[in-house]
């Protein structure tokens, strides 16, 4: 039994802002003019992500410089500096969350940009291109990279985003033993990529306490890093990337009134489910470049977390699309006999009164016969 279908003619919003330098609506002082261009294909993007994942040693002059990463947190590897490299899965997911893999688009706002052909996507607060680079992109700012190329070149833009992600890796504390090839170890850095704001603390009460892994097809509110992690698990299609069911840190460990503390190896199956466990994952891009072991789930080589289940991955299978529609709108009937105590509430009293009323009427009718 189903309810009436609801048909809508509402179109998916194009949402292509272009708050370029010369726009009359450039209230946030964006400092670089938009550049005309068309987006790479999905296949071309995949190559770009693979290139950028290798860091400056891979992208060379196609991107800016980037700092080395600190690898190791003494559990057991001592901290040391290594050339920056990035899980391509995270770059892909971040770019999807930030811009739907768009360096360019046909502007639909502000008003004085409508009618222009495809050009750099620029948010109202001066986020440029596929990685939505905002740092250094305002008027008067002089960052250590080429702002024109950030606006004009997809690879350079993405590499600049990676450079900023490396900065966040340095600004945040260890996750696990702080291994760059392990996707989950970037949890805090990804949080910081969107800003070290309380909005991204998973203990913020604005978020549902029963939220699972973020699913783009369902949407809803979630901290930024959960949206990125959920995107990794739910790619738009298999041709974009392969689903990876990431593990999450324990929210009780993260803390409620601070930036993320140093975190143990993430093991939770979802942001709110630590009764079920998952293992962390190696980036397939970095494993190929390192010529190391097979990519995928990693057995913890460190000290086991107390109380953690050594269970198999409890995540969903590879998902190439939205979840199936909800069950028919009629909710299931009560599935078990329930003994209730003394009836409460006005409903029962009213039902009793109705019975008395009917009895009164029957008596009355009988008396009249």
């Amino acid at each position: 039994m189903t309810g009436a279908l609801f048909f809508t003619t509402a179109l998916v919003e194009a949402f292509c802002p272009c708050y370029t330098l010369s726009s009359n609506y450039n209230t946030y002082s964006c400092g670089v003019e938009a550049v005309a261009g068309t987006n790479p294909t999905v296949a071309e993007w995949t190559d770009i992500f693979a290139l950028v994942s290798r860091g400056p040693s891979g992208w060379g002059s196609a991107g800016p410089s980037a700092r080395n990463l600190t690898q190791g947190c003494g559990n057991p590897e001592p901290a040391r500096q290594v050339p920056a490299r990035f899980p391509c899965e995270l770059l892909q997911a971040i770019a999807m969350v930030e811009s739907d893999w768009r360096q360019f688009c046909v502007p639909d706002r502000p008003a004085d940009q409508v009618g222009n052909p495809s050009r750099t996507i620029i948010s109202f607060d001066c986020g440029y291109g596929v990685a939505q680079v905002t740092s250094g992109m305002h008027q008067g700012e002089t960052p250590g990279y080429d702002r024109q190329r950030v606006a004009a070149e997809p690879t350079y833009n993405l590499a600049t985003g990676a450079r900023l992600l490396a900065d966040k890796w340095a600004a945040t504390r260890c996750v696990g033993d702080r291994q760059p090839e392990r996707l989950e170890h970037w949890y805090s850095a990804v949080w910081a990529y969107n800003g070290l704001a309380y909005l991204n603390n998973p203990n913020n009460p604005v978020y549902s306490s029963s939220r699972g892994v973020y699913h783009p097809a369902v949407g809803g509110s979630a901290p930024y890093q959960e949206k990125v992690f959920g995107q990794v698990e739910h790619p738009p299609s298999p041709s974009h990337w392969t689903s990876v069911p990431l593990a999450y840190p324990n929210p009780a460990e993260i803390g409620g009134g601070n930036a993320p503390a140093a975190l143990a190896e993430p093991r939770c199956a979802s942001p709110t489910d630590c009764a079920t466990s998952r293992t962390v994952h190696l980036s397939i891009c970095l494993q190929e470049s390192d010529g190391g072991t097979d990519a995928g789930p990693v057995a913890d080589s460190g000290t086991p977390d107390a109380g953690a289940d050594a269970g198999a991955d409890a995540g969903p299978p590879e998902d190439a699309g939205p979840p199936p529609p909800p069950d028919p709108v009629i909710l299931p009937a009560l599935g078990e006999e329930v003994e209730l105590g003394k009836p409460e509430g006005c409903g029962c009293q009213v039902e009793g009164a109705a019975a008395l009323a009917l009895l009164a009427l029957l008596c009355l009718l009988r008396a009249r016969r």
Partner: protein
Amino acid sequence: MSGLRILALGLGLGLVQTALAQAAPPLVALLATDPQGNSTQLYFQRAGEKTLAEPVASLQHRTGAAVQGALLPGTRTVLVVADLPAGSDLSFGAALFRLEPGREAVLLADRVYHSTRPLVAQGRVFVQRGRAGPEPSASQAEEGQLRVDQLTIEEIDLATGRARVVHRHQGYLAFLAAALEEELILYRVAYRHADLVAVNTRSGAARVLLASLPSFARDFSLDPQARALLYTQHDARTGRWVVERLQLDTLVREQLASGPSLALAPHWWPGGKLAFNPGLQEGLAVGKLRAPLGRGVDHLRAFSLDGAFAVGLHSVGGQFPLPFALHTASGKPLPLAFPQGRRIEVAGILEGADR
């Protein structure tokens, strides 16, 4: 017909009429959001009816926006907080809208905190607003500090949108937990600190309810008869999540229940009972009632004025939450139609002559 018989007939008919009126399934205000679109529709759906009603109002917002709403009691007006098309920082990128059947949505206030629900108390509407502060410096980040924001609690005039600041706080969060009479209960979070305060909506005077508590509190529910605040908290000693109750007059605090999951979602229940979810898959527990809607977490949103019905959302992580209506006495769910493929939010139960 004798007088006695007339009296009996009248009494019987009156009781029948009362019984029928009070037993009528609730008319529920539902908000349905296209998860990949930029619109939300408002429905007034009668529980128990199999046919979905037509939407009565619509709202445009950011693609993929978080949308939460609250019904203004005694009216057909729903206040909605939804994200506006904006930049990457969603913190204060939402707006308060007024939705009424057959009318265009009206934007009342911007800079509203993301993913919050407007608080309606005594016919007045309050929201969390603010402005983002600067990003923490490297040394501040090293200390574990987050961005400090300028936060306000504001009353919004529903006719004009004019805002009146009731409370100011500089920190991470000033969360509207509940309202009791003329006081708003706020949960405030700052660097390594959280507290609960009560703020008088007229004078702005604040009194401290809890000077310090672990900054994990969530899912606040006010028991109006007991004058107590229920919420979930984390107990660092046991590592478990607990339901705490704070008596607002005596400030006595006690733990009522505990579980391994933070999704306890406690809520008061008519008759002075506690409703909560013992586990992530165990559903609602109230007295001897267990899991009336099956596995998942049940978040209660509202009760009918007579306490006969409860409405809320049944949640299984990663899937669309499902709205539900329950008969509180029997625990039996009522059919509640809703548009498929939409993310649903329950704004309340329409009561009174406006039904």
